[in-house]
C-alpha cells in the first residue's frame, strides 16, 4: 500500500510538472483559470505553514511564549526587509533553536 501511495503520488507530481512542457499539447486554459492558479503558490504555502506556527501542539497558541510564532514574526520581518531566502531562514532558525 505504501508503494502504491509513493508511486501514484510520484505520477501526480511528475505530470503536474511535465504536462505543460509537452509541445504536442494544445493548451487553452481560460484566463479565469490562469488568474485563479496564479494565487496557488502563496495560498498553498501559507496553508501549510500557518498550522505549524499557530497550532504547534494541536492547540491555538497565540502567545509570546510560542517560539514558532515569535520566530515566524521575525522571519516575516526579515523576509520583508531583506528579500533574502537564506538569511531569513538561517537567522530565524538560529533564533528558534535558541528559544525552543
Amino acid at each position, binding site marked *: 500500500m505504501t508503494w502504491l501511495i509513493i508511486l501514484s503520488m510520484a505520477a501526480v507530481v511528475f505530470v503536474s510538472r511535465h504536462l505543460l512542457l509537452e509541445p504536442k499539447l494544445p493548451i487553452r486554459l481560460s484566463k479565469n483559470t490562469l488568474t485563479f492558479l496564479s494565487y496557488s503558490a502563496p495560498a498553498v504555502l501559507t496553508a501549510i505553514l500557518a498550522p*505549524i506556527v499557530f497550532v504547534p501542539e494541536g492547540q491555538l497558541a497565540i502567545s509570546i511564549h510560542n517560539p514558532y510564532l515569535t520566530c515566524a514574526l521575525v522571519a516575516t520581518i526579515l*523576509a520583508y526587509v531583506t528579500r533574502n531566502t537564506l538569511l531569513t531562514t538561517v537567522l530565524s532558525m538560529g533564533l528558534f533553536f535558541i528559544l525552543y
Partner: protein
Amino acid sequence: MDPAELTSITTTKTKSFLAGAIAVMPLTIAVIPWGILAGSFALEVGLTPVESQAMSAIIFAGSAQLVALGMIKAGIGIGSILITTLLITSRHLLYAMAMRTHISPLPLKWRLGLGFLLTDELFAIANQTHKGDTPAQHQFDRWYALGGGLTFYFGWNIATLLGIVAGQSIDNLGELGLDFAIAATFIALVVPTVKKPSILVCVLVSLMLAVVCAVFAIQAGLLIAAISGMAAGMLYAKLTNEGSVVATDADSTQATVTVKKEDNA
C-alpha cells in the same frame, strides 16, 4: 566541428552547470533541516528506510511528501492523499507554463529531466538568470537549469538520508522543532510574492482558515484553506479592478499561453 570549438562548447556547458549549482546553494542549505524531518518523520509514520528514501528520490516534492506522511499517519485513504497532492503540486502547472517556451522546444530527454527537477527552488533560480540579462543573453540555459536542479535533488536526498539515519538512532527527533524549517522557508518564499493587495487577502484568508481547520482537526483543512484563499484573492482583484488587466467579455475568455507570457514579459 574542430577540436578547439568542441572544447570551448564543453567549457561553456560546465561553467553554466556550475553557475546553476552555485545559484541554488542557499536554497539547498535552507532545505537540509526539512529533508532531515522528511526522512525521520517517514520512519516515525511507519515506512521502511527504503520507502522513506524512495519518497524523496521518486516523488521529490517536500511539501507533498510531508503532508502525505501526516495523512498516512492519520489513516486517511489514498484518494484524499492524491487529491491533496494534486492541489499542493498544482503550482507546478504555472511554473511549467511560464517555462514552456524555453523547455518545450528541447529534445524529449531534456523535457523529461527538467520537468522532473522543476521545483519551487529551480523555478526561482531559472527566473533570476533572466532579470539583468541583455536581450542577446536573454536565452534559457539548459545546463544552468540542470546544474541547479540536480544539485537541489542531491541535497534533498542526502538530507533525507541523514534524517533516516538520525531517526533510527535518535529518539524524538520530531520534538526538536525541525518543522520550523518548513515555516521559515515558506515565509521566505511567500513574503516577497505579496506584491498586490489581492495576494495579501489570499494569504490572510488561507492563514486564518488553515489555523481554524487545524484547531478543529479538520482533515481537509489544507484544501479548504488554500482554495478559499485563492478564491478570495481572485474575488478581491475582480471587485477592485486590481491591476491593468482589461476585463474580457464572456466570449473571449479563452487565453492562450502566449497571453500569459506577455503578462510576464
